């Protein structure tokens, strides 16, 4: 495994705060004026812990993942990321807080801007946060760690397979070294061997950086083997 060794940048992990990476308290969330999908849900993901969230489709797993990533504003409840409360969501969340969570979505085709090459796709968060200089240092190592060869990086999304694109999306989620990685059905569209490779890449990265994980899915076997503990969605609901 090629190690991203020549990196003088400070790591976020060493301070090892006892604060949990993610703390959701009494989250009620839904869409428009319809009946809320989540009702007073609470969930804690400890620092460096891997939590699997299981549940049938339509139960609100993805909504919960989006709330955790500060991409959906709940109607009630509090979200704390590494101990810091979130007061805004989407663009209203402060940039430092947004970037403490990396997200991987279910469908890589929709999660990748069709006009960017995979290299630009992965480097996009670095450029967006004004860390352009790090692109050349970080990109090759990170791409290699998710299993993307040099030739693939110059291609655009329509020229690669779903699995390769999802690897790029994973790299994009990790490029800012988040404290928490949210995988929303990351492997649902992929075959078994690609799934195994992606999970291995995530685990490799987590072992190195101590990133916490919230993996959402309905593949019980996978999540139970992957995560430290799994949570059944219905147990989060009151009564």
């Amino acid at each position, binding site marked *: 495994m090629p190690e991203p060794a020549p990196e003088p940048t400070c790591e976020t992990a060493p301070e090892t705060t006892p604060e949990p990476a993610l703390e959701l308290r009494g989250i009620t969330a839904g869409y428009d004026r319809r009946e809320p999908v989540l009702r007073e849900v609470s969930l804690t993901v400890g620092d460096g812990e891997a939590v699997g969230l299981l549940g049938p489709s339509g139960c609100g797993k993805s909504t919960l993942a*989006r709330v955790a*990533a*500060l*991409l959906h504003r709940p109607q009630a409840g509090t979200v704390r990321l590494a101990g810091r409360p979130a007061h805004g969501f*989407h*663009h209203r969340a402060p*940039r430092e807080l*947004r*970037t403490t*969570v*990396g*997200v991987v*979505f279910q*469908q890589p085709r*929709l*999660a*990748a*801007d069709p*006009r960017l090459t995979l290299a630009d796709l992965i480097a*996009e*968060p670095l450029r*967006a*946060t004004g860390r352009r200089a790090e692109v050349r240092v970080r990109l090759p190592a990170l791409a290699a760690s998710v299993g993307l060869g040099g030739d693939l990086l110059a291609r655009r999304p329509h020229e690669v397979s779903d699995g390769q694109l999802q690897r790029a*999306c994973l790299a*994009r*989620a990790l*490029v*800012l070294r988040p404290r928490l990685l949210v995988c929303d059905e990351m492997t649902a569209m992929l075959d078994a061997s690609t799934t195994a490779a992606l999970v291995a890449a995530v685990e490799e990265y987590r072992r190195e950086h101590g990133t916490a994980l919230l993996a959402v899915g309905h593949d019980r076997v996978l999540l139970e083997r992957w995560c430290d503990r799994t949570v059944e969605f219905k147990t989060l609901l009151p009564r």
Partner: protein
Amino acid sequence: MTAPAQAPAEAPGKVPVPASASRRGPGRPSGARAWRTRASAALTAATVLAALLVPVVFPLDQQAVDLTAKLQPPSWEHPFGTDELGRDLLLRCVHGLRVSLLVGVVAALAATVVGIAVGGLAGALGGRTDRLVMRVVDVFASVPHLLLGIFIVAMFRPGVWPVIASVGITHWLSTARIVRAETHSLRNRPYVDAAISGGASRWRVAVRHLLPGVLPQAGLAAVLMVPHAIWHESALSFLGLGIPAHQASLGTMTEAARGSLLAGAWWPTLWPGLFIIVPTLAIAGLAGAWRERINPRVRSELTL
């Protein structure tokens, strides 16, 4: 054993395919449509070249009055004939086309910029801003735009720029609607969420992720708007509100030719009329071909 002889003709499982469809792939336009596209392209090119080159290559005075040669029918000396003041109609038509094309292109560009700005803002911000802006658009759209255009040019001295402003101000509405709808669908894509999660600012999301997705549709709308703008220029000039009467434009020429028509001279009306119709149809034909390219469903629906 005579029966098997005809069997290959209707082999089982073979769907009869029309000859035209089998010859050309699904992505290739069929013969008539390709011909139309080529004709449109050729005519558009000829129009643009004529408007750009003729005044440079033949620096003749299009305003030169020759009362001894007034209302001459088409001849070798004056291929399109002369008007009621003895001015050469071919030369004036080309100069008029120049003005009309200038107005058409600049007005369409201005309207497109305004449309992208307004539609993009409404689509990207959503919520209350979106509703408010789109109601304003509806109000503008409820007024017949020629009427609004007349109102705007009437406030200024006749000239090219009031006409451009008038067409630009009245024609951004459809572009704004298109851009707003497109932005709305793009901004809820997961890749926009991923960008936000990666720390991208609103501005960066708008410029990097939303605008490039909107530009093809907006560009098409802009090209489709050019013929429309030319018609508006001609209509306003015909009514005496657009380009000043002495300056050659397709609208002022048609207007000036009305008197000659009663005197039995058909040519001062015919040529400017053709110069309005042919280039605008050619540009619209090109835009139609482009639309079929970026939105193949339109083509398949037309073929059905």
